[in-house]
């Protein structure tokens, strides 16, 4: 009796084993063939915490790609830390994978230079520049500081007394703060800068009285500026931004403007074909109405470029940032 039930169970297990293994084999074949055609699934790496500037770019791209059927599934993965170099080092190990993209930009270039990261842009495949954003210098609404000039006076006389919160080292936030202090004639080494890994955390640090001043991406603060909880003192653009009633840092007589551009990078070791497919995908992305809508809503300036044009820009930008960081004595 017992013997026979055992045998039946064994047979059942055998049949199930063969069936499931067969199904698995079919699935392997299936997924291998679909993986050949990039576009069924993309993993988008964000080298910063959720809820910041880089993160919004990824989530908006995710939406635009999914909504238009350009990619079936887009998964956003946040890997904050180390001025973006944590995400970068992860990306550098995805050799030959055409289904991974990473958000990159000013901050990554700065992060690599400042941290002396062993992984550099040479270890990934920069693809395209998508848009430009700017840095805002802001204080709490209850702060006695009413304008950038007032901040400049206090800052110059005792830089260590002013606590500044912003994104990781080497980000556009950090560079803007250090440059401003230097242009004011103080030693940028005296900058009292507290590092956070996302715009949301920077905002909390400001509102919770941890920091006196915040430097962060403009759109992350937009809602608080609108309701009057936060006072925007200046933005880092060269000219006043359309629809934004905030003066530029230049208007206070400082020789300083810094664009916080955002772009996309792919994994290293791609074939030319894979690279072209991904570039086409990005080109399709920026033409979707959803992407255009996101640009308007977040106040991003459309500066799409790819290929050789982007490569030239990147080389020039890297040289410029390296010079700035060296001038600040941070490299």
């Amino acid at each position, binding site marked *: 009796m017992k013997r026979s039930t055992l045998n039946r*169970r064994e047979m059942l297990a055998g049949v199930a084993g063969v069936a499931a293994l067969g199904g698995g084999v079919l699935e392997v074949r299936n997924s291998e063939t679909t993986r050949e055609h990039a576009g069924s699934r993309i993993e988008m790496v964000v080298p910063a915490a959720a809820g910041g500037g880089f993160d919004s770019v990824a989530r908006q791209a995710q939406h635009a790609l999914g909504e238009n059927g350009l990619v079936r599934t887009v998964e956003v993965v946040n890997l904050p830390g180390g001025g973006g170099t944590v995400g970068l080092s992860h990306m550098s190990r995805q050799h030959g994978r055409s289904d991974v993209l990473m958000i990159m930009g000013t901050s990554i270039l700065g992060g690599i230079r400042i941290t002396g990261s062993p992984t550099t842009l040479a270890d990934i495949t920069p693809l395209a520049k998508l848009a430009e954003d700017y840095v805002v210098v802001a204080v709490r609404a209850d702060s006695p500081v009413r304008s950038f000039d007032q901040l400049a006076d206090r800052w110059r006389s005792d830089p260590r007394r002013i606590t500044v919160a912003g994104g990781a080292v080497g980000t556009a936030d950090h560079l803007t703060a250090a440059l401003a202090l230097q242009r004011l004639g103080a030693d940028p080494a005296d900058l009292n800068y507290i590092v956070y890994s996302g715009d949301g955390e920077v905002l909390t640090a400001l509102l919770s009285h941890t920091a006196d001043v915040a430097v962060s991406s403009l759109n992350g603060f937009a809602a608080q500026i609108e309701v009057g909880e936060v006072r925007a003192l200046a933005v880092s653009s060269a000219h006043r931004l359309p629809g934004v009633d905030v003066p530029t840092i230049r208007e206070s007589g400082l020789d300083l403007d810094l664009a916080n551009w955002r772009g996309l990078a792919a994994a290293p070791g791609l074939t030319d074909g894979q690279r072209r497919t991904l570039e086409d995908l990005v080109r399709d992305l920026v033409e979707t109405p959803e992407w255009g809508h996101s640009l308007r809503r977040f106040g991003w300036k459309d500066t799409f470029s790819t290929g050789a044009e982007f490569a030239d820009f990147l080389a020039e930008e890297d040289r410029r940032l390296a010079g700035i960081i060296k001038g600040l004595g941070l490299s």
Partner: protein
Amino acid sequence: MTTAEPLRREQAPGERAPSDPTGPGPRRIRSALAVPAVTAVVALLLLSGGALMRVPKASGFLGPQFFPLTVGALLMLTALVSATWALRRGSARIGRGGAGGGRDTAETPSPRGDWRTLTTMAATLLAHLALLQPLGWLLSGTLLFWGISYALDRRRPLFDLCVAAALAGVVQLVFSGLLEVALPAGLLGKVL
């Protein structure tokens, strides 16, 4: 794995000592010193890592080396204190120090370890690790399941193999097919 795998192999001969019936005194002492020894190794790693760290210039008020150094020093202190206690108290109270976190509190460790089972398990894990990429999930996953169940109970290897294949197949279907998590295809991916 390069960091902790050697640790495990070094442990093996050291751990064997308690199960050998070579007299209670020295064996108990050695067993009592295992934890302080590992603690000291971790502390040394933290201290040397902190001391030799390349620190970027823009690293804030307390640099990145402060925390590892502090924790390393505290751990070293703990290792020294517990080693002295263990030596001074001799063999009497060892093994009853008390587990925590709610596990198996009342039990004392059993005197003998089953080294045969453990070796089979370790071999299975290492083989799985080495074969996952070249053979793909379906085959190496089958091996993983079969190896572990064989290690625990050797009576019905064929039945276990069927279950193993079934589970590996189901996992492939669920993860790769439904959840779109790419599992290594390996050999099969190339053949098909």
